[in-house]
Structure formats: structure tokens, C-alpha cells
């Protein structure tokens, strides 16, 4: 089963894994933030990622915009979508109980997926730009340019979000809120307003994450479940609400995926990653809740 590989192929896989890991970090961040800070299990997160991919496609096809510009546009667009979702749904229903929230957000997933199929059909789409099939070669290691750009976008956003949470008073208030909601409220922190901000930011990361994924992988309205599983895996391993731990977990998953694809036949890759999700949940004992102690 295990295949023999050259050193250069391994290094290639390592580099690809790290780049992919940055993108996985980005698509998982929102899930980690909403779960860690608001206690909301946003199962519709992956459909927002998928919408990000289609935003890039539409902007490319209609306006000829490069995905890099689409990533910038996605920030306010998806922030607004997140704000609307939080105000119209999450704040009313989802926080009454986690089960109710889960069902409501599953409904959101079905609606978005259905609408996407109506709009774009189930055909697989590819973002094709001038640098799609180009790569940089360094000491025999080829790095695909789209993957490099996607990883750079992800890294910038992850660093910006980390800086926001660590260096601004709003960020510190969000961290306070994630640690003790009642204490934050009675101290003078408007936790409703901050929840709106957190959900907006989480949705923005999902949208930009969708743009970056579309630069690397073909996509259709139904393949987002894979990204949901990936994101949950990153959250389970990295813990809730902690950007730095999410980054480490994202890089680990990226590396495991690319190294598995080099060391094992292709069909084993997903099996290995999903197996890792099961093992991580078992080791954690309490599943996602077990990750909470490391929040922010």
C-alpha cells in the first residue's frame, strides 16, 4: 500500500501541505470563532464557503475580475451576509438551545445549497485565470502560483484577525465575552453587538476562504460537505476560538493530506483524514465541548 517516494517529492508535498494548510485555517476560523465565542455550531458554514467560490466565479465571468480582487470584495459582502444572518436568525433562534440552532442552520445549509443548484446547476466549475496553470520552480520544487496566492491571502487574513483580537479593545472585549458571557455583560460589554461583529467576521473568513479554495480546486454546489468536515477536524484538533491553535491544526491537516496523497494511493487520502476526525473526537472525550478550555 505504501509507495516509495523520492525526497524531492516529499519536500514538494511538505510545501504544498503548508500552503494548503493556510487555506484550511482560513476556512475553519469562522467555525472556530462562532463555536468558541458564541456557542453556535454553524453547520451552514461550508455553504458560505461555497458561495465565496461562486462570487469569485461570477466576478471573473461578468467583470473579468481577478480572484485576488474578489477576495477583497468578499470581505464586506460576506461580512454583511453574516450580520444579516446573525440578526435575522442566530440572535432570535439559534442561541435558545444548541439543538434548535443546529436545526435552523441545517435549514440554512439546505436553502443555500438548493438555491446554488438552481442558479449554477451541479456542473463542476473551475476558476481559470492567466496564472492558473503556472508554477514557480525553486530547487526543483514546483509551487503552483494559484496555490501560493491563495495561501498568501489566507495568511494575511489570519494575521489581521489575530491582530484584531489581541491588540484592539474590541478584540479584547470579544475574548472577555468568550471566557465569561455574564461577567462581560455586567461589566458593560454589549455582547449582542459583539456577537454581530463576530458572526460577520466569521462569515467574511468563510467567503474569502471560498475564493481561495476556488483558486485551487474545482467546485460545485454540493462538494462543500468535504470542507465542513475539514473545518470541523481543524476545530477539534486546534480547539475553539484560538486563532493560533487553529493555524497549527490547519497546517497539520494540510500536511497530512498532501503527505498521504504521496505515500498512499489517492483513494486512501479521504479515508485517512476522516479517520483522523473520528480519532480526534474520541481522544477529545467530550468532542467539540472538550476543546473549549483552550478558547482565546
Amino acid at each position, binding site marked *: 500500500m505504501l509507495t516509495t517516494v523520492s525526497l524531492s517529492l516529499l519536500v514538494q508535498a511538505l510545501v504544498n501541505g503548508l500552503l494548503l494548510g493556510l487555506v484550511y485555517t482560513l476556512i475553519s476560523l469562522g467555525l472556530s470563532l462562532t463555536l468558541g465565542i458564541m456557542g453556535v455550531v454553524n453547520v451552514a458554514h461550508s455553504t458560505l464557503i461555497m458561495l465565496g467560490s461562486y462570487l469569485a466565479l461570477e466576478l471573473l465571468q461578468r467583470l473579468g475580475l481577478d480572484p485576488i480582487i474578489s477576495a477583497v470584495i468578499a470581505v464586506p459582502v460576506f461580512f454583511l451576509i453574516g450580520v444579516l444572518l446573525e440578526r435575522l436568525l442566530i440572535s432570535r433562534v439559534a442561541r435558545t438551545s444548541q439543538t434548535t440552532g443546529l436545526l435552523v442552520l441545517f435549514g440554512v445549509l439546505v436553502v443555500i445549497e438548493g438555491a446554488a443548484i438552481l442558479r449554477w446547476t451541479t456542473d463542476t466549475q473551475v476558476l481559470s485565470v492567466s496564472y492558473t496553470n503556472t508554477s514557480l520552480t525553486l530547487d526543483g520544487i514546483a509551487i503552483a502560483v494559484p496555490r501560493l496566492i491563495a495561501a498568501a491571502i489566507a495568511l494575511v487574513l489570519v494575521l489581521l484577525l489575530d491582530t484584531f483580537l489581541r491588540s484592539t*479593545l*474590541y478584540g*479584547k*472585549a470579544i*475574548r*472577555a465575552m468568550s*471566557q*465569561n458571557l*455574564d*461577567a*462581560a*455583560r*455586567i*461589566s*458593560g*460589554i*454589549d*455582547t*449582542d*453587538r459583539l456577537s454581530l461583529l463576530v458572526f460577520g467576521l466569521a462569515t467574511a473568513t468563510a467567503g474569502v476562504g471560498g475564493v481561495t479554495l476556488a483558486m485551487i480546486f474545482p467546485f460545485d454546489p454540493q462538494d462543500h460537505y468535504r470542507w465542513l468536515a475539514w473545518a470541523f477536524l481543524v476545530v477539534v484538533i486546534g480547539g475553539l476560538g484560538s486563532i493560533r491553535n487553529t493555524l497549527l491544526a490547519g497546517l497539520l491537516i494540510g500536511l497530512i493530506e498532501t503527505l498521504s496523497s504521496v505515500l498512499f494511493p489517492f483513494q486512501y487520502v479521504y479515508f485517512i483524514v476522516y479517520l483522523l476526525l473520528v480519532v480526534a473526537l474520541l481522544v477529545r472525550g467530550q468532542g467539540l465541548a472538550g476543546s473549549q478550555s483552550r478558547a*482565546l
Partner: protein
Amino acid sequence: MEPVLQVDSLSKRFGSIVALERVSFALEAGTILGLIGPNGSGKTTLLNTLNGLYRPDSGEIRYLGRPTRNLRPHQLALLGISRTFQNARVFHTLTVTQNMLVPLVHARVHSAEAQERARQLLTFVGLERYQALPASELSGGQQKLLEFARALMTEPRLVLMDEPFGGVHPEIKALLLERIREAQQERQVSFIIVSHEIPDLLSLARTIICMSYGRIIARGSPQEVSEHPDVIAAYLGHAGGQAQIQTSPSSPVSSSSYFEQAGGHPS
């Protein structure tokens, strides 16, 4: 003079349990009200209702003459009602200074002014040397001091304190008692203090209210309440006999002595 707080016929139920039943009282500016009663008598529920964490089923709360029914906890905090908890709820991964600053996130206070206010209050409670430490590294008693200082950041007119003296080092307790008195006398802050440490509470409060099963069963001076037969019955389970409520307070100490004895490090 208009009272800081006016509570009229406040009631709150949780299913079939009556947590508060027609509770009424008023609190004058710059006074300390002690709230005592056996476990489950409704003291913490009353605090949670006063600061907006719970909504009353009926009755009215007026803070500085203004009804508070539709105000949320953070709005009440910014208007001047602060709160501490039985187990100090500090923000563990934030530093001591950051704990002090986050309550002002929505307040229109200049950053330099907020920093200065935080520094002064940390000095006030003897925590100035721990400003850069994560709050998790403070001892339990120091976390209570930090929570008290944080409650003063919004310059409150009323501070609600739930068991501030429970389980803390005697010298930290004495410091806390002294600082509460100072805040009351020099800043005209009013306090409602729930405590099972009755001697300490009696040393602070001019008026005591005793609750049992969600109702006020006695109110008056410490002496009057401690001798009230219903109060004795509530604590001992029967009326009559010798009053068993100890009323001698502990003695205060200087703010620095505990930390000097502790070697300048959080224990």
C-alpha cells in the same frame, strides 16, 4: 433626596419555585445595605434581577428615578450599576490591566484617561504591581480584588457584591472591607452586599435586610435584625432561645501588608 435605588413589589419565579416575592426596599446614596439570609433565600436572584441578568415577573426597579425594566445588563453597567460575583469572574487570559479596560469598550472615555483610571484603581486595591500579569496568575483573593476594581471602572453609583468575603485570606478580606468603606465614604458609592460573613457585613452596613424563601422577613439596624425572632428562626430553624448570630467584626489592616507578607507574588 431621591434614593439611588427604589425596588417595589419585585417578584420572580422559576417554574413553581418562588425566588422573589413582593420584595420592596429603597437605598439612599452613599449607603451600604447588607443582605443576609439562608441559602436559597433569593439573595443572588435579587442581585441578578437588579443588574438585568434576570427579568422580573412583576414589580418595578427604579435606578436614580429611572425604570430599568427594559435595560440590558451592559446598559445598566454603563449607567452606574456594577456587580461582583460569589466566585470572582475575571477574564483569565487577559492581563490585569486588560481586565480593567474592557468594561469601557463602548464608553466614550479617551484611552489615556481609561489607562490612568485603571492604574489608580489597581493601586487602590493593591494590585498595581501585577498589571501585566494574566488574571489567571492571581490568587483567588486577588481575583476578588481585581473584580472589585473592575466594577469601579465605570464609575458606578451602585455596586452589587455577592459574597465578597467568602473564602478569601483574612488580610485580603480586611483590605476589601477597608476599600469598600473608602469607596462609600469618599466616592459616595452605594453598595448592596450579600454575605454569609455576618460579622464583617454588620461592621459595614447601616441597614440589614434578611430574606427567607424569596421574601424580606426583617429589616433594620444590624442590632435589630440580629435579634429579630424570624431571623433567628430562619437561621436556626426555630424561634426563641439565645441569638446565635455572631456580630463582632474583624479588624482592618493596611493595604500593603498582605502583599508584603506574601513576598510580593500572587499566591
